[in-house]
């Protein structure tokens, strides 16, 4: 079953994606609801799993992380390597922010953050290329990124 949203839910979600730190009162004023009614709606969206969680938005460059690289990874020696072993090892690397199991040209998509290109090279050589089952790796350096509102 998928959650069904009305127009007010959609507006709330759009506002919360921009800034989740707003109080229920402030949000309510923008969508024309009372503070308790807004709070109840947010609770319902959380309980339905529509809001999966909250995230702190940090400026990576201000914290010294100047490079983000996306890797397409193929798993070699199929059958002899357990995907669970690869997944366990890759999720233990602090610089790896995202791991997706995908179907297509690659088996996994990784998002890796590093201080600069030489730091990225260190992560790639020491941590990525030593992963169990690692095969071909393709790297693309992120230049710009924008999150869209999506079909809300």
């Amino acid at each position, binding site marked *: 079953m*998928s959650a069904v949203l009305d127009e007010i839910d959609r507006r709330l979600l759009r506002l919360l994606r921009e800034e989740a730190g707003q109080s229920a009162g402030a949000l309510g004023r923008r969508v024309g609801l009372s503070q308790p009614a807004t709070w109840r709606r947010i609770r319902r969206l959380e309980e339905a799993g529509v809001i999966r969680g909250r995230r702190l938005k940090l400026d990576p460059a201000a*914290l010294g992380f100047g490079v983000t690289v996306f890797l397409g990874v193929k798993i070699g020696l199929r059958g002899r390597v357990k995907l669970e072993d690869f997944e366990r090892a890759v999720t233990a690397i602090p610089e790896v*922010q995202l791991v*997706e199991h995908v179907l297509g040209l690659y088996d996994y*998509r990784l998002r890796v953050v590093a201080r600069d290109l030489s730091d990225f090279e260190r992560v790639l050589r020491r941590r990525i290329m030593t992963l169990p089952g690692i095969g071909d790796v393709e790297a693309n350096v992120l230049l710009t990124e924008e999150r869209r509102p999506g079909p809300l």
Partner: protein
Amino acid sequence: MLDDEDRRILRQLQAEPTLTMPELAERARVTPARAARRVEKLEAAGVIRGREVVIDWAALGWRVHVSLRITVEKSAPRALDELIAAARKVPEVIEIQTFLGRVDLRLALVARDMAHYQALYRDRILTLPHIADIEALLTIATIRDADALPL
């Protein structure tokens, strides 16, 4: 410049953005007043840009997630800009990224099911301008999506 105290506060807040100031202060081993001041300073400096909710598109019925990796036709001078502007008009596109590498552009697309994806791909994606080549990666499972920095 950030010191160890800032880093401790950011680490705790990054792991749990909904912490109250007293909880944050306790975990970062500072007084609540000091934690509040530090957070305010980090916000003013733009290190903390804010907080956002993470939406589970699958819970809303958007179960198919595809990464479209696009190579851009380089003949037109403003090809990439025009392609991005057109992609912004497709509501099902939830992320737009540009790259240095073999791939120029990635669009993250959500669809209700495979039939819907097929329709979107045919009617909204293949009709975008200046596309030289597209490769699709279908997400089977998200193993980690922390988006956290190793502070």
